[in-house]
């Protein structure tokens, strides 16, 4: 009981630290790729603390509640994800629940932004929702392939089986799905070349256009959690999870840096181009992966 409560408290905190670290690291790495020096690693933390004490504007109840819902949703997802061997709420519905709670974050952001009544926000949300429909097609195929392969909807089970046999990414049909997931990862994270919804130079950061002060701080924290969740999901499903949090973190780091280096050099897609890309190669791979998995399993 006590360990359970400790885990429930510890896993979001760890996730936050990892997520914020990734945010700082991303800025540093991209700066180096651009031949700049870049801000210090702790810059996101400094920014957040500063933002908390700054003034902000509110457009109404939903404007406030939306951002709270968004962040709360992201934190709850963390409770359902195994982090090493640590998974506080493993037996509550499995991957399907994770998939659905992951909805709360963009939904809350969209509701909050909706009350902002700003054209930039509307464009941003429209792009965000279209983009998420775009990557959801291959993502669902990937997740279904995993669930069909392991005959379970429990993510803990998937991790356990991989630990006793081999990682999914190097097993035959699933490496197609794993590759597909890796290809759509930047779209899920909303980083380049898929930063269409937040595009700062075009639409003033889209859904965040009206945010200032603590709203911006919460939105940044939320982004940190999303970073953690999408990468942790990949590590759990395809890289066999890990026996302890340290190894898990190392795996996450490798995935993140690899993804970042590939994607930092691309210019931003237009939204149609992004959808065309997402519905072409990743979907094809995921589709093949699912068909072969089904054929083998039946």
């Amino acid at each position, binding site marked *: 009981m006590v360990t359970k409560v400790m885990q429930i408290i510890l896993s979001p905190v760890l996730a936050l630290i990892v997520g914020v670290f990734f945010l700082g690291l991303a800025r540093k790495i991209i700066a180096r790729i651009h031949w700049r020096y870049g801000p210090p690693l702790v810059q996101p933390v400094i920014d957040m603390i500063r933002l*908390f*004490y700054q*003034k*902000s*504007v*509110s*457009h*109404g*109840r*939903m404007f406030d509640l939306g*951002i*709270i819902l968004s962040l*709360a949703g992201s*934190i*709850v997802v963390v*409770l359902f994800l195994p982090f090493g061997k640590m998974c506080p*709420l493993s*037996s*509550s*519905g*499995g991957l*399907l*629940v994770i*998939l*659905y*709670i992951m909805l*709360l974050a963009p939904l809350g952001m*969209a*509701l909050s932004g*909706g*009350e*902002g*009544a*700003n*054209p*930039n926000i*509307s464009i941003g*949300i*429209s*792009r965000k929702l*279209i983009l998420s*429909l775009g990557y959801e*097609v291959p993502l*669902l195929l990937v997740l*279904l*392939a995993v*669930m*069909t392969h392991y*005959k*379970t909807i*429990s993510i803990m089970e998937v991790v356990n089986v991989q630990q006793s046999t081999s990682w999914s990414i190097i097993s035959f049909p699933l490496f197609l799905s794993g590759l597909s997931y890796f290809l759509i990862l930047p779209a899920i994270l909303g980083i380049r070349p898929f930063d269409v919804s937040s595009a700062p130079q075009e639409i003033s950061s889209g859904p965040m*256009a*009206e945010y200032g*002060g603590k709203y911006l701080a*919460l939105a940044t924290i939320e982004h940190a959690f999303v970073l953690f969740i999408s990468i942790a999901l990949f590590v759990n499903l395809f890289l066999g999870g890990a026996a302890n949090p340290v190894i898990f973190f190392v795996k996450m780091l490798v995935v993140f840096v690899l993804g970042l280096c590939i994607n930092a050099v691309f210019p931003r897609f237009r939204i149609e181009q992004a*959808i065309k890309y997402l519905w072409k190669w990743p979907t094809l791979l995921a589709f093949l992966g*699912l068909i072969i*998995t*089904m054929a083998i399993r*039946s």
Partner: protein
Amino acid sequence: MSLEILLITAFGGALLTYLAGKVSYKGRDFLAVVISLVLVVFVACLYGKAPEKTFYSVFFGIPFILRLNMLSWFFAIAISSLGALCTIFSLSYMKGRERTNFYYLTMLVVNAAMLGIILAGDLVSFYIFWEIMSWSTFLLISYNKGPALAAGMKYIIMSIVGSLAMLVGMLSLYTTYGTLNISEISAVIASASSGYILFILIIFGIAFGIKNAVMPLHTWLPDSYAEAPSPFTAVLSGMLTRMGVYGFLLLMYVIVGLHNVITPRLLSYHYILAWLGAITIVIPTFIAMLQNDAKKLLAWHGIGQGGYMILGIAFGTSLGVAGGIFHTLNHAIYIALLFMSVGAVQYRTGGERDLNSLGGLIKKMPIAFIGGLLGIAGLMGVPLTNGFVSKWLIYKTLILQRSPFLAFAALIGTWGTILSVYKFLHNMFLGQLPEKYENVKPAPFSMQLPIIILSAAILLFGILPGIVLKVINAIETSFGFESLNVTLWGITSESGTLNTINIFFAVLIVGIIVWTVFRLGAKSVSVRQDDSYAAGAHIPKDKYHYTSEFYNPLYRMIKPFLRDVIDEFYYWIASSVQRLSGSVRRVYAGDVGYYVMYIILFLAFLIFVQLKWKLW
């Protein structure tokens, strides 16, 4: 407390309400509400009982049977409760309109007829009540005249096609077995050839498929939902359309029986039905995204969600059927709530339902907004709302049954839903408030009450689904399924457990923590809606709507694939028949001389035949 008294109360009450309306409108409103509430209490008292009563020689000596079992009780309580809430909602919505007596009469008759359908223990009374329901629905859909007349016509024509199919099935059953008693048929049908069972499944499937708007039999639905008065649309989408689901359950698991449905020798009827369900989910959901009419958008979702129910019950596993039945109830709750929310907005804005001319109403109509928010959450299936639990059951069935592509169709339908319902909620309640709606008042209490009750039900059944699942479990054991391991907050099984109370506390506690952190930060200043940042540019007020053509980039990509080809095909049939009849009509010239000529020509033809071949 017997069943015939229930039906007499329902039908008699409808008539009484009509007569009371001739005397006083107040008295009529009161009577309508009282009768619909009495029905709820009546049905609730019948919980767990299984009365059965036979009346002889009513119709050609065929006995007329009323019976109640767990399945009918489940539908009865949903029908009567929804009917009561919609009647309450109607009080202000219909005030001051013309022909309100007629409206209440037909509304209550529809309710009574639905109760009759689910209480019927033989196919003749089933058919009679089914027809009463179809015809009174037709009258209500056409209530507003204008385009509503065309919508009603479309509905009734498709309905008649369905009824005729059912009639053929009934006649065939009667000539084969000499009885139309449901329990007697189900006892003897096991010995029938698989071809005959398939025929029965298909012929009744057409009737129920039309009612439940399964693709490709869905085309009546969008127009009817959009044109009917909003409180009735809530009944229409919530329960009436779902009589099709009841029909499928009755057909597949009571009449034909579980074993006969899922045996593979039957051309995999259930598998084809499941694929039709999947198609019914995906295409309408994406069409819904292109709609700009609030009610039409919901109507397309009404079709799409019907697909989930079919997908659930088609598979013939205890989890899937539980999901299908539960989704029927959940859908009734949230779609009624959404139509009521739209109805409230329409009531206050002079009947406006064009999404591109509304906006910003959250500050004016908070209760309607909460209803809309919880309604779309249920429709999407966000965890902690009722829609989630039933969808979870259906997805899990599909994954465990190794049908990941069906599961993919169901899941991607959900993501399409998010896009369209966000647009729905945003364009009505969020964004800029147009100046003409500056003085809009909140909906009256008689509209808010049903909205609040339904919103509470969404959360209640989402957090404690066991309340309903226990009843569903009893239904399933009566079908011959193995019993599910149901707790108050979910379902336990080997391959994945659902525990909603865990999710609830996680969301609650984390939400409180985040809220506290939010409160600890520097205070924010409330600003006017037009005081927003536009990178130095001036945002014109009231000049344009930020979300018209909201998903334009996506439209351009998917629009060519989303034509309602089937509707066009039906229209083509209709116009061809019309043209054909037009040319046939010319034969009847109206001049006696022509008719005499026809007769002589015909006689000459007969004489010619006789001389040539000597047939007689």
